[in-house]
């Protein structure tokens, strides 16, 4: 086991309002690992992903992501190394796909040319001037993946990784995931279709706890 795992959760619990989402969750994610996260609807997969993305604080237990203790101000220093592609697009509907990616590039301190190049790499070279609210779900998903190419994260979190994507786009998802793990990062892919996941191992959420899938 690596001395510096990318994600380390120890008996983590998470309660939102009166709902207990996670309890005693344990998980370790090493550099170069690609892990599938499975579970039925409403089991807490997205919530777990958002907690690993440092966007939610655990209500019990402890955890570290990229060396930062969850729930502390240290997470501010590692957030720029995390990309989460959720099942709802993190795009501004009124802006074009190009404007959305350039917004990300500017705030991430990356060259603007990289924004257009990344759109081309996900097959959206000709759609840069199309507004997000006039784009198909698949195009929005690809534009979201372009964000991962701009930021080059150490931790990539993909919620519903293959949902609504054609075969070419699924190949793009897998290529980007390979790039991240190839650079020493790690990837978590949430999916309802475990057969389509090409991962090192999978875990599933069962009654708020994480169990390895054989």
């Amino acid at each position: 086991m690596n001395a510096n795992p990318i994600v380390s959760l120890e008996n983590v619990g998470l309660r939102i309002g009166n709902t207990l989402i996670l309890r005693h969750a344990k998980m370790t994610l090493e550099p170069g690992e690609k892990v599938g996260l499975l579970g039925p609807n409403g089991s807490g997969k997205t919530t777990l992903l958002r907690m690993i993305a440092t966007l939610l604080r655990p209500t019990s237990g402890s955890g570290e992501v990229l060396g930062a203790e969850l729930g502390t101000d240290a997470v501010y220093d590692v957030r720029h190394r995390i990309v989460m592609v959720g099942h709802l697009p993190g795009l501004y509907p009124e802006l074009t796909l190009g404007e959305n990616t350039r917004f990300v590039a500017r705030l991430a301190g990356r060259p603007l040319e990289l924004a257009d190049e990344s759109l081309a790499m996900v097959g959206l070279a000709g759609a840069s001037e199309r507004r997000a609210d006039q784009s198909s779900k698949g195009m929005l998903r690809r534009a979201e993946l372009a964000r991962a190419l701009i930021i080059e994260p150490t931790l990539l979190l993909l919620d519903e990784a293959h949902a609504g994507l054609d075969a070419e786009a699924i190949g793009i998802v897998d290529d980007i995931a390979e790039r991240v793990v190839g650079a020493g990062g790690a990837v978590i892919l949430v999916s309802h279709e475990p057969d389509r996941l090409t991962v090192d191992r999978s875990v599933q959420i069962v009654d708020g706890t994480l169990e390895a899938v054989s």
Partner: protein
Amino acid sequence: MTFWRQVYEIARKDLLVESRTAEVALMTAPFGAAALIMIPLAIGTDAPLLTDLGPGLYWIVVLLFGILVILRKSAVDGGPQRDLVRLLGIDPAARFTGATIATSLLVLLFEVALGPVLVALYNPDLRGWPWLFLILPLVAIGMGLLGTIASGVTTSLGTRTSLTPLLVVPLALPLLLGATQAFEGLQLGGSIVPWLVLLFAVDLALAVSGILASGPLEEAVT
């Protein structure tokens, strides 16, 4: 990336979104103007009365319809967009400041758009009008600050737009008082400095509170 560069990018994005929808220019401003037009119809064409009431009515319309501007702004950032900005490592204070600047500019635009309607229908005494170059931005900044704070509070509570007017209207009363009294001071030839100080103090207090609360409010969102 520097703090002010982050502020610039957030404000630029918000204004770009507004330029696409043009909601303030095409919907809120005409609606506000319509309200100013309807009031003389309701109270009659008593010219001296309209001249006396005009400035006060103008500020009430700015306050009430300015809330629509604020609500529009708070709708720009949904959950996924907020997550995006947080993961990009944007300083919460920079995000607050950028959003406030964008909202304040929109409220200022709204104030300016209503100005000709006020002059045409109410014929107000515009003695000392150059002071409006100070009063209008001070009120717009106050409204922008209130809107951004209210947006943060309602988002963190999960109540969103329904609570925003209830938060904004009471807190905007000092702005309304300062603006109307400063305007009246100009007409009567009295000193308006105390009212300008009030507006400035309200803006300063809101700015400090908003910046200090921006981080905790952002992290409280589930």
